[in-house]
């Protein structure tokens, strides 16, 4: 597979993907981190000095996996609105009762739909979210391997080969020697193979 084929494939795929977009109605919810001024009732989540740290850690980890239903893309962990506070409280109650993460998540999904989960569930159609990236990357690795192999055999441009068009080891034409001498003068190189000129200060004589 050559580069061009890969690029073309990616471009066509992107084109096809982009072509499906106009089918969607562009309506973005403009909800923000809102709140009410009235603070009715006790605050939803607090921990006192004697609260169980481990329990709190579990609760916080769960909060990071659930999305506030009315906020644009914020997890419970990030959101301060009333509904988030309520959800955090319910979540903790259920943890106290001994329910596990899966059951709690199912509870919220039943109420608010799949979009309440911060990542698509690992089931059904949504498995596609999780499977496609590793598959594409694996294919990419294979592709990369073949590309590198093909590059090794070399699709060398015969017109452009070498720098300035000369393939090393084959100075085409005798009068290159004069030019080579001129180059060496510019670079102030002496001919010995073990030259220890490692400093660019010698380059000041170069024009």
């Amino acid at each position, binding site marked *: 597979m050559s580069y061009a084929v890969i690029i073309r494939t990616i471009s066509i795929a992107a084109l096809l993907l982009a072509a499906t977009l106009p089918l969607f109605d562009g309506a973005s919810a403009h909800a923000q981190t809102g709140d009410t001024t009235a603070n009715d009732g006790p605050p939803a989540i607090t921990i006192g000095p004697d609260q169980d740290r481990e329990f709190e850690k579990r609760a916080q980890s769960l909060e990071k996996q659930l999305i506030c239903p009315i906020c644009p893309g914020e997890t419970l962990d990030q959101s301060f609105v009333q509904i988030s506070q309520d959800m955090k409280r319910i979540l903790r109650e259920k943890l106290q009762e001994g329910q596990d993460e899966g059951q709690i998540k199912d509870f919220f999904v039943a109420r608010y739909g799949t979009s309440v989960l911060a990542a698509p569930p690992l089931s059904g159609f949504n498995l596609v979210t999780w499977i496609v990236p590793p598959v594409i990357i694996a294919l990419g690795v294979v592709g990369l391997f073949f590309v590198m192999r093909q590059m090794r055999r070399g699709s060398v441009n*015969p*017109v*452009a*080969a*070498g*720098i*300035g*068009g*000369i*393939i*090393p*080891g084959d*100075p*085409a*034409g005798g*009068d*290159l020697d004069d*030019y*080579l001498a*001129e*180059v*060496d003068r*510019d*670079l102030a*190189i002496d001919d010995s*193979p*073990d030259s*220890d*000129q*490692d*400093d*660019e200060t010698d*380059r000041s004589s*170069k024009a």
Partner: protein
Amino acid sequence: MPIAIGAIVAVISLIVIAIPFIRGSGAVLSARYTGEVERLTRLRSDLYDQVGQLQADHAANTVTDEDYQHQLLELRIGAAETIRQLDQLGYEDEPQDAPAYLTLESLEEEIAALRQAGSRRDSGTGGESESDDA
């Protein structure tokens, strides 16, 4: 008042745009020539840079002696070829001293000379594979 500002800006723009026609600027086709000259000059300069970096790497032992010799030869040959191509372009003066104006006849001669140089170049050398439609 705001509209006056807009009008002034419009007038200034018109004047600025018209000046080249009034004054008569340089021609466009010599761009190819100086483009090529500068490309070769820059290439030579880059190659000299790379020699310097190669020598620094060699002194720091990140390049083996064999690789050093091979790459040094490559770079020297490349720089030499660059100078040869500059010569073939008939280049003699420094571009910075060149006057700004050019007549159409001298341009046509220039293009013809470039074409001659292109056909006389040794086979296998890198040529500017430009399209002729510009």
